């Protein structure tokens, strides 16, 4: 009798657990599901009412993005900006992080605090002066301007993460290499970086997504259609108050793909990155 009672309680507990998990997943994934469903419905079908499963299915929303709107231009711009900002900041941060993790000098703790500060600095307090500075440099409506601005968050972020990685690696190997006549730069590139490869990959991925997803600076700095990055390009799909939902959701699906692939592949590193505040929550 007692064993039976115990068993029922356990089953109910498990059932409640799985039910809660299912509910949580439904709530969290509903907008994504809805985006995909809408992107697969023909535009005229969308206005006939809500359908939980798309029928008929059409890929015209996706095709139209490339045929009637220059979505490929936005993608190329975004790729250029995100990869330039990421690689530039990666090079800068490898040296900065090495400096913070391996070398001793006066004022180091202030420097590391300053970089953390730089990462946390609210963009709303920078957007107006940065706009005016870029304006006086003639870099408004210019992808180079956007790349420079993105360095303000990718560099401190990458430095902070890499510093942690470098610190977790014992310096013995590099020291041995340097005793054997390897230069410091050689020791960094031939000894430290291969060992820190997972950290480098994670940092690259996060900087890239931070830049790929950025909205406010792109909105302020880019005007002309041919320089638009994906978020601003998508915004340009709307005319006044008319929202072509099929196309918008199709564009949303395409814009999410890089981030999603990266997260599913990089899931192992995500929590470490989260702890450093990879994307604003």
């Amino acid at each position, binding site marked *: 009798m007692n064993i039976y009672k115990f068993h029922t309680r356990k089953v109910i507990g498990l059932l409640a657990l799985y039910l809660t998990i299912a509910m949580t997943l439904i709530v969290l994934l509903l907008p994504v599901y809805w985006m995909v469903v809408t992107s697969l419905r023909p535009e005229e079908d969308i206005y006939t009412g809500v359908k939980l499963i798309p029928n008929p299915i059409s890929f015209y929303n996706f095709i139209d993005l490339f045929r009637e709107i220059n979505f490929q231009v936005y993608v190329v711009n975004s790729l250029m900006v995100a990869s330039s900002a990421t690689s530039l900041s990666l090079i800068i941060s490898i040296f*900065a992080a090495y400096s913070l993790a391996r*070398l001793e*000098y006066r004022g180091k703790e202030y420097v590391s605090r300053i970089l953390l500060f730089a990462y946390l600095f609210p963009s709303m307090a920078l957007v107006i002066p940065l706009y*005016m500075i870029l304006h006086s440099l003639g870099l408004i409506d210019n992808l180079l301007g956007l790349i420079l601005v993105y360095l303000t968050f990718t560099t401190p972020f990458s430095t902070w993460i890499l510093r942690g990685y470098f610190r977790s690696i014992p310096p013995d190997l590099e020291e041995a290499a340097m005793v054997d006549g390897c230069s*410091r730069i050689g020791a960094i590139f031939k000894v430290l970086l291969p060992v820190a490869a997972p950290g480098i990959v994670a940092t690259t991925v996060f900087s890239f997504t931070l830049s790929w*997803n950025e909205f406010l600076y792109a909105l302020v700095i880019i005007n002309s259609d041919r320089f638009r990055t994906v978020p601003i390009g*998508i915004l340009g799909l709307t005319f006044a108050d008319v929202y072509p939902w099929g196309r918008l*959701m199709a564009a949303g699906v395409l814009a999410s793909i890089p981030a999603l692939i990266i*997260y599913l592949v990089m*899931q192992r590193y995500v929590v470490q990155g989260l702890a450093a505040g990879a994307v604003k929550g």
Partner: protein
Amino acid sequence: MSFMDVKNFMIKSILDLWKRNRDAITGYLFIFPALAIFIGFIAYPFTYELWLSFHEKNPGLEAKFIGLRNFLEVISDPTFHRVSINSCVYTFTAVFAKLLIGLGMALLLNQKFKARGVVRALVLIPWALPTYVSTLAWRWMYHHTLGLFNYLLLNFGIIRHPIMWLGDPKMAMASVIMVNIWRGVPFFALILLAGLQTIPTELYEAADVDGANAWQKFRYITLPYLKYIMLFVTLISTLWTFNDFEIVYLLTKGGPVNATHLFATYTYEVGFIVLKLGLAAAIPTLLMPFFLTLMVKVTQLMER
């Protein structure tokens, strides 16, 4: 002393300096580019912003010094009062909800169940998506006549008339907060989950031996262990949520009748739509003491 002696002496002392301080000099050289970015793109713009907030500046015209007039105009502006209240309601409600739900979700994800790894990965999706994408999806679900929410609520008989999610001033704030919570909860959950995993299981075993119930274990083991990580995630999220722009900009543009206007969207509007750059600069300047306090606190917690 001849010229050659002086030259040799100088070369020797520079070499000496290099030999004695090799590490320090390399350290400064290596950190310099990162610091230069900080100075050029954060410290200098920020100083410029402070300067700007004491000036009247319209695009194409010279800046004119006007003392504290921008600040006086901002603090006597009824819209700014509305915006301040909105920002506080938005931030504190969203952060509080994210903390509670995030903690619940962390406890849930810490249980043993099948496909736990997959679930943990899926939970991250709202946070991994670009904010502007998910916000547009929410805008579509909030649609008055064709939206998913009204369809579901009407069909389940929960409401009789469609809700104006974004058009009704009373509803709009709740609707934008919902999106922020949805987007931020995975961040809270995963950070807190990471915290939960550092708690030694022996503590719970010892508590079981002492006959503690689930609540007591949570109250006297879990919570004290999570204290700092909870503080960290709350403060950093407060900083970000106060700075939030995209969700409101894409859902309501601050409307209806300023009901959802936040500091960031209002600054953007004054600066880039009304084109009063000096006045717009005064808004973040006024908020800076608050931002700086939060930043110092978060920095201290991150350095622990």
